[in-house]
């Protein structure tokens, strides 16, 4: 078949030497021609395996065939049937582990998968830039008040669906900005704030109300929400607590969590001279960890002028949880990968600023519970390297604020809220939860899927259909 002979499209990107001087989005998107050609690779499989790899089962062949026919706005509509934030997911989904890993091309032909993520982004961007964004018409307002705690992807997706069903939705956000990790975590060069803002404005047009600087469990209690007349509450407060390693010297000046580093740069715009918030711009910067957060931090460090920006990871590159594209981009940008190294100690100067770190050389042993080969220290093999800034990116835990402030809420030993997997309902009947507060650290699309499922089941419960 001719279709299968076409090569997978390449994403148009800014050149590495240029992009490390600014925060412009690295991926420039596909042209319509590129997108239509790529779409023509899709075989419209009778049993599309790709869909089994998408956590929200987007109708992939249908939206791709719309693109192939040049009916891009139709493609966007198909996406929106299942995904609340296609422009976001097309950019940040780990496609190679999800939809694209299940594509017929990968599974059966040993070829590159159809670029589902790129196409998804293309359709969503096309719709937005066309100025013909469809804001769902809300036919019936039922007057029932619903509260959402947290404005990350889970909260936004939930709010959108509930508004469509006709509810009066209020989203409470602890920070001064809406968007959760999409704003304070994922950097501009990967997900521009304007993309997120368009989605938020759509929700506003649908009548969703946003209240910033309001911490549920602090400013307002769960009981207050009841008194205010809220009939259903969706908790999407994320997994915001940074973990540290607990090694000597970790509290020296210049050592911080990736949450602090990224929040300063993304939320507070600290790299901008006009911002009142300071940020350390190290020359020799080490990032500890191998996830998306680590890649975002190390690439940020390069953009803030680091001559040496290093990833320190205790396993090998193969085990890294970060998206392959982020690893590729980081390498192109001159990031050094020190794999099979683990920090064991930091050393400071007379003022308490970190100046060196001691690294333990590791090797891979047997696979552990996560299925990844576990790292083992090679005794006696250590190295000292010079650093003036260290970003610790070894994971996050769920924020205990909500679980601690609501009596009787069931929480797992990891601090996640326990819910029914199908309905997202907790054992408190009017309280639902989803996203990272339920899953620990997960992904945007999973958080969004949770929000949508919670909306469907809360709607059912409230309209007496359950």
């Amino acid at each position: 078949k001719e279709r299968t002979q076409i090569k997978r499209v390449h994403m148009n990107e800014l050149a590495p030497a240029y992009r490390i001087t600014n925060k412009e989005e690295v991926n420039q998107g596909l042209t319509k021609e590129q997108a239509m050609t790529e779409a023509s690779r899709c075989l419209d499989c009778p049993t599309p395996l790709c869909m089994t790899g998408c956590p929200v089962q987007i109708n992939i062949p249908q939206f791709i065939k719309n693109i192939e026919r040049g009916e891009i706005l139709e493609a966007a509509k198909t996406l929106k049937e299942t995904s609340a934030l296609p422009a976001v997911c097309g950019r940040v989904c780990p496609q190679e582990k999800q939809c694209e890993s299940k594509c017929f091309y990968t599974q059966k032909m040993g070829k590159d998968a159809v670029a589902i993520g790129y196409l998804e982004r293309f359709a969503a961007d096309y719709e937005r830039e066309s100025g013909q964004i469809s804001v769902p018409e809300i036919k019936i307002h039922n007057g029932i008040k619903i509260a959402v705690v947290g404005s990350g992807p889970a909260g936004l997706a939930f709010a959108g669906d509930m508004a469509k069903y006709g509810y009066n939705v209020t989203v409470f956000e602890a920070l001064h900005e809406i968007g959760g990790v999409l704003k304070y975590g994922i950097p501009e060069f990967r997900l521009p704030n304007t993309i997120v803002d368009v989605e938020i404005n759509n929700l506003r047009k649908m009548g969703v109300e946003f209240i910033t600087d309001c911490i549920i469990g602090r400013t307002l209690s769960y009981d207050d929400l009841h008194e205010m007349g809220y009939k259903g509450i969706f908790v999407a407060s994320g997994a915001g607590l940074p973990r540290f390693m607990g090694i000597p010297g970790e509290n020296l000046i210049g050592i911080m969590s990736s949450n602090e580093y990224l929040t300063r740069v993304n939320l507070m715009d600290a790299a901008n001279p006009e911002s009142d918030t300071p940020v350390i711009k190290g020359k020799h910067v080490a990032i500890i960890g191998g996830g998306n957060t680590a890649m975002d931090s190390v690439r940020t460090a390069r953009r803030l002028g680091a001559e040496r920006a290093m990833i320190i990871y205790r396993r090998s590159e193969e085990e890294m949880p970060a998206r392959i594209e982020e690893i590729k981009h980081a390498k192109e940008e001159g990031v050094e990968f020190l794999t099979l190294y683990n920090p064991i100690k930091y050393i400071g100067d007379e003022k308490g600023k970190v100046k060196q770190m001691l690294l333990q050389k590791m090797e891979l042993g047997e696979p552990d519970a996560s299925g990844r080969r576990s790292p083992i220290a090679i005794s006696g093999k250590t190295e000292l390297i010079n650093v003036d800034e260290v970003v610790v990116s070894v994971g996050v835990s769920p924020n205990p604020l909500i679980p601690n402030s609501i009596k009787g809420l069931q929480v797992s030993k990891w601090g996640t809220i326990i819910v029914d997997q199908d309905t997202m309902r907790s054992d408190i009947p009017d309280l639902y939860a989803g996203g990272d507060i339920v899953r620990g650290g997960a992904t945007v699309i999973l958080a969004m899927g949770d929000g949508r499922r919670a909306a469907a089941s809360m709607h059912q419960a409230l309209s007496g259909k359950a």
Partner: protein
Amino acid sequence: MNKIIKKEYFSEKVVKLVVEAPLIARSRKAGHFVIVRVGAKGERIPLTIASADKDKGTITLVVQAVGKSSSKLCALNEGDYITDVVGPLGQATHIEKVGTVVCCGGGVGVAPLLPIVEAFKKAGNRVITVLAARTKELIILEEQMKTNSDEVIIMTDDGSYGQKGLVTQGVEDVIKREKIDLCVTIGPAIMMKFVSLLTKKYNIPTVASLNTIMVDGTGMCGACRITVGGKTKFVCVDGPEFDAHQVDFDEMMMRLSSYKDME
């Protein structure tokens, strides 16, 4: 956006702001703080809630201008709006009737000390307040402290007002004179360190309210972390008050200077 209802000068660099914040006024307790941001490019800075009026829906902040962000806030006038005010944050002060309490503060610590002095007095304690500064002009809130304390002792480094000497001298004089059940200290880390060393010698339980650098104030970033009893704690959620005898003040002092050359 929170409106400033009233502004009053306590001294050239210290202002009292009464701010509209009905939800915070309702839920706050002594010892809680808020995070405030002034302007679109503003920094998030923590400030203790000095007092609140539930009926009027206001909170009172006492702010000392020490750098860029606190100065910006102090420059706002009645009728102006503060871009963001979020809270109440932190753990409330543990207030009970213990007997005699010495409250000592210096520098930036005097403002957040006031609500604590008030609360201990209200709980029926004998409260002795020791205020310290380099020189006479820098002594603030003396009148407010007097209204709420059984005795106020002033210490200046240069002897231009009150007694000449450091805060620790003032506190030690009291300790030698009568039985002290609790000491509360807020101020520069170096001051709290020496107060803590002193009271440890006399075995007096001591609480220090720590003013570390913060960003979010909700436990999300770890900027505020310090070591207490050998363990890392987040001041914004675990504190701001800790057993002073367990706090690693040297580390705290070091961390406070993180951005010194940038501010």
